[in-house]
């Protein structure tokens, strides 16, 4: 009885199947589009990976220069950029990793670069000076202390992350 009442006509059957299949196709086309559109919002903030730089046993109280490479993504263009760090242990035995980029105009600073100013970082471009902990020496061009890298020690290897500005004038 009920079977007879609920009989689906040929027209209805075709309607249902076509809407169903069409719906699937539309969803298949639209969902990747929606995902693409939303992608920038869903993406977590691009954090820089930590990069292995040196062995902890090589680090002394005297600043040493270590060169490493980081992957930099500029829009769609990915490249490897060389970076350096001045790494040493301070009085408390903590590791300090300073960025060698002068805060004045971005030259690369050297440790003990000038004889009349021993135990300081020296910028050869405009004769800027920094103390060992990165503090800028007053009356030289740099307006701020050297940036400090975030660091992490894992299995005797030093990993460096982003260079962060230090406080102070």
């Amino acid at each position: 009885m009920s079977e007879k009442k609920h009989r689906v006509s040929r027209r209805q059957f075709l309607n249902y199947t076509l809407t169903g299949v069409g719906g699937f196709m539309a969803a298949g086309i639209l969902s990747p589009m929606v995902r693409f559109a939303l992608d920038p919002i869903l993406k977590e903030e691009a954090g820089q990976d930590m990069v292995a730089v040196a062995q902890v046993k090589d680090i002394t109280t005297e600043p040493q220069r270590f060169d490493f490479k980081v992957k930099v993504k500029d829009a769609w263009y990915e490249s490897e950029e060389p970076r350096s760090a001045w790494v040493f242990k301070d009085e408390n035995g903590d590791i300090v990793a300073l960025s060698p980029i002068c805060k004045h105009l971005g030259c690369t600073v050297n440790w003990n670069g000038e004889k009349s100013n021993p135990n300081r970082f020296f910028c050869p471009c405009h004769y800027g000076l920094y103390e060992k902990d990165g503090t800028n020496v007053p009356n030289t061009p740099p307006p701020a202390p050297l940036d400090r890298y975030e660091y992490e020690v894992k299995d005797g290897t030093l990993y460096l992350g982003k260079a962060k500005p230090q406080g102070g004038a």
Partner: protein
Amino acid sequence: MKWTAKDVDMYQQAKEYVDTALVPCVPIGITNMKAFAEMSEHTLFIANEVERQFKGRVMLFPPLTYFVQEQIQARVYEWINMLKQAGFQHICFVTSHADIADESFVYVPALPLEHADEAYKQKVMRQQVEQVMDALVTKWTLKN
């Protein structure tokens, strides 16, 4: 500083600090093309590296490019004059092409490093970068 819109902005704000022009000199040759391409690659690499170290005082210009058959001397002097007029007190050309002899040139020979091992390659590159940097520092200290 590099010849890019972003760095030129910076240059215009800090003009009095940037007194040095660094110009890579790159020859083009059709016979033995590969050797010339190597020279070009090498020269530009060295120049870029020097710019990275001395970013705050050096403006790295786009390369002065010429065909090997060209008479380059006159053009070089013209560039020197123009750059001097533009306020650059120190002008330094970097080249891997031995043909040009002038006091403002630093010669960085391009060695066939294609198949050399990485450590040796880096050592040679670093030496040459240091050579150019030393030349610049000498120029700076002489003037002061």
